[in-house]
């Protein structure tokens, strides 16, 4: 497992306390999990994704990630409609381990961008992890 100073962060993104990230700006937002989350989970073997068109409220579960011996639930950082799922993860879930900030899981059309304001920025997420 990584030491704290080995962890990567994307300074542009917003984060949840459950370690999801969401991109900022544009009509469609990407959602994924942080480097810390993928490192904790270990080799990801399966990603369960929602159907395109499904809508979720902020904080609602929209999928799961599985490693060999653990399951982690995915919660949506901001409410909205799923407009795309990352099909590449179906065959290659390891993309999340390799590039957690490139391997988005879903794209959403947010119902209320104001919800973004309630999320952590990279700095506060880092502080949260540091404890």
């Amino acid at each position, binding site marked *: 497992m990584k030491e704290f100073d080995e962890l990567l962060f994307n300074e542009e993104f917003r984060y949840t306390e459950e370690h999801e990230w969401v991109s900022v700006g544009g009509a469609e937002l990407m959602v994924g999990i942080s480097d810390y989350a993928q490192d904790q989970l270990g080799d990801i073997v*399966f990603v369960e994704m929602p159907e395109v068109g499904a809508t979720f409220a902020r904080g609602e579960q929209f999928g799961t990630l599985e*490693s060999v*011996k*653990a*399951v982690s639930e995915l919660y949506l950082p901001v409410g909205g409609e799923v407009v795309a799922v990352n099909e590449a993860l179906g065959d290659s879930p390891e993309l999340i381990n390799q590039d957690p900030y490139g391997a988005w899981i879903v794209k959403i059309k947010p119902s209320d961008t104001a919800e973004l304001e309630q999320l952590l920025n990279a700095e506060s997420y880092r502080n949260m992890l540091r404890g």
Partner: protein
Amino acid sequence: MRYLPHTDEEIRDMLAVIRRGSLDELFCSVPDSCRYEGEMPLPPAMDEWQLTEHMEILAAAMAVDDKARVLIGAGSYHHHIPETIRAIISRGELLTAYTPYQPEMAQGTLQGIYEYQTLTSRLLGMDVANASIYDGASAMAEALLMGLRVAKKKTRVAVSAAVHPHYRQVARSYLAPTGYELVELPVGPDGRTDPALLSSLGDVAAVAIQSPNFFGVIEDLEGLASLVHDAGALLIAVFSEPLAYGLLKSPGACGADIACGEGQSFGMPRSLGGAALGMFACRNEFVRNMPGRLVGQTKDLEGKRGFVLTLSTREQHIRREKATSNICSNQGICTLIASMYMASLGASGLAELARLNHSKAEYLKSGLRVAGAKVVFSAPTFNEFVVEFPGDFRPAYQRLLERKIVAGLELGRFYAEHAGRYLFCVTETTDRKTLDAIVAEVNS
């Protein structure tokens, strides 16, 4: 006591290390109010020879013993078991191991289960089989629950009335507290599930059809499959006599989505109904909704082929209340017995044995027909069939019983409308002489 190795001296030494004065003191954390009062009221210990004698007395109390000819199947079948199975299965390395949590020291168990999964998938025409469920009944109950999981929003399942009555009872027990509804599909006059109701079923998640069914009748699985799929449901093909698939078109080839049932016929004694084997297989797309353990092939550090338990995130030890099932211990060694049996017969042997079962059953069927009995159902049967005798069959049944022949199973207990009718089963273990004797008794 020969299983307890400690000498008094060793006990003293060990107690000294842990600073306890006596064995009783080990239980200092147990409050008095929880304690067992007095000695457990159990019979005194027997030595090996006394136990052997005692078992002989119990065996002698069996009016129908292993020498009798029992022409009953109904979910538990008498087939010959080769001596190789007894010999191999008694090997302690296989028998006294547990669930292969440490794959490097359980490759025997794991490869054995992988082979079982493969042969089972091929027999049933499915993509993947699991490492077993308890028995045919719980396998069907699990399949119905799986159907409901796959369908997500639906709350009803349908089961043919020609499915083994006990399997249906178990399904009802499992579903009772869940709020899911189980509807029964009636049986037509030919002994097959009546397809008429299927189109008007409405929103069912899955439909369970047994073939050969409880009456021995081979269902038109293919025809049913398209109706079930048109209704937007999954087809669960159930069986209690897997030997039939040595001859019959596989459930998968007929369009079933899940195939499950009892595997006792493949090398396990009847033993009053257990321990045997719940077989469970499905199409690939449903694998993550499957209950039970799965063994998968992989590679070791050096690239060598090996086997591990896999897709465990479905299971209770990881997903707890969200698991696809609560099953932990399964029927383990029985999967090895079944695959040894299937492999020993091979493709041609399984077909030949199945044909022999069918031919013998047909021989008795036509004999009884000539003797005046009516074969109740017109559809083709495998090694079981239902007959109705012109008069009261009970005196003949009694006379045959005195000759240690159990002539069928009276159906009134299971189906009021079939009271007085008998379900017969004939396997390779019954010779022609016995079949002729039954026919002669009906004639007399």
